[in-house]
């Protein structure tokens, strides 16, 4: 199989996986609203919309690259991904500390909503991914 065909196949697999992920998160948000948990439902639905927008932006960009005959990942995009991950790692540590302290405070102040396992997972992962995409977008546009 030549390189272009391999890239195309990989691209299709990643696209299908992303569509399933977005659908899964979206349906989770809909189920929350059926259970009457409207705040969680809105947060999850907004999160699924954010992932869909980011995925659509990447999809259009990468599709254009493939059509023009460029590889999906060149040396520059590898460097940017590595740099963005390193910055996101540092930013995520501070973000996670904020979440940790928020939950400790929420344990003592009853009016604040506490994070259980699912909420902590969603907020931590969602936050880390959003931080990564913001940094990745800035670095890509800046041309570092």
């Amino acid at each position, binding site marked *: 199989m030549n390189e272009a065909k391999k890239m195309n196949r990989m691209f299709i697999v990643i696209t299908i996986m992303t569509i399933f992920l977005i659908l899964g998160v979206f349906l989770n948000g809909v189920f929350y609203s059926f259970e009457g948990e409207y705040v969680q439902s809105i947060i999850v639905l907004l999160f699924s919309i954010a992932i869909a927008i980011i995925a659509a932006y990447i999809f259009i960009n990468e599709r254009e690259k493939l059509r023009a005959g460029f590889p999906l990942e060149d040396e520059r995009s590898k460097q940017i991904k590595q740099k963005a991950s390193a910055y996101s*790692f540092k930013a*995520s540590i501070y973000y996670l*500390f904020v979440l*940790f*302290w928020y939950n400790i405070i929420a*344990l003592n102040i009853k009016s604040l909503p506490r994070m259980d396992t699912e909420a*902590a997972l969603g907020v*931590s992962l969602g936050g880390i991914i959003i931080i990564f995409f913001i940094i990745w977008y800035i670095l890509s546009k800046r041309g570092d």
Partner: protein
Amino acid sequence: MNDKTGIILGLLATILVLLTLAVYIMNAGTIDFTELGSFAIVIILVLAATYIIWDRAKNIRKGLPAKDERLINISYKAGYYGFIAAIWSAVGAPLLADIFLGREELEGHYITAIVVLVSAIIFMISYFYLAWKGK
């Protein structure tokens, strides 16, 4: 970001880790053997971070840049591994807690603590390994 800001942020993170550990100990009441192991890991991480910060501060005092090109590349690579570890540890934390600690439900702050701990361990190990291998 200039070198001094980097060192101040590093110190801030170290102080936050120590404060978090102190709050955790005060909230925990009784501390079991597994938790003692986690504290030891945190202390080792704090010591390693302090060494890195001290090394950079020493370079600045000599009028040298805090990090040379090689160290910058190493910290990007180690940061990349730390980031991947953060994502996977967030996904696997509830599962690991259930297997090793027998806890089906974890409070939100335990999840964030596990993610910080695991990603920091991976970052430190990769940083020192890459520095030692000279990559």
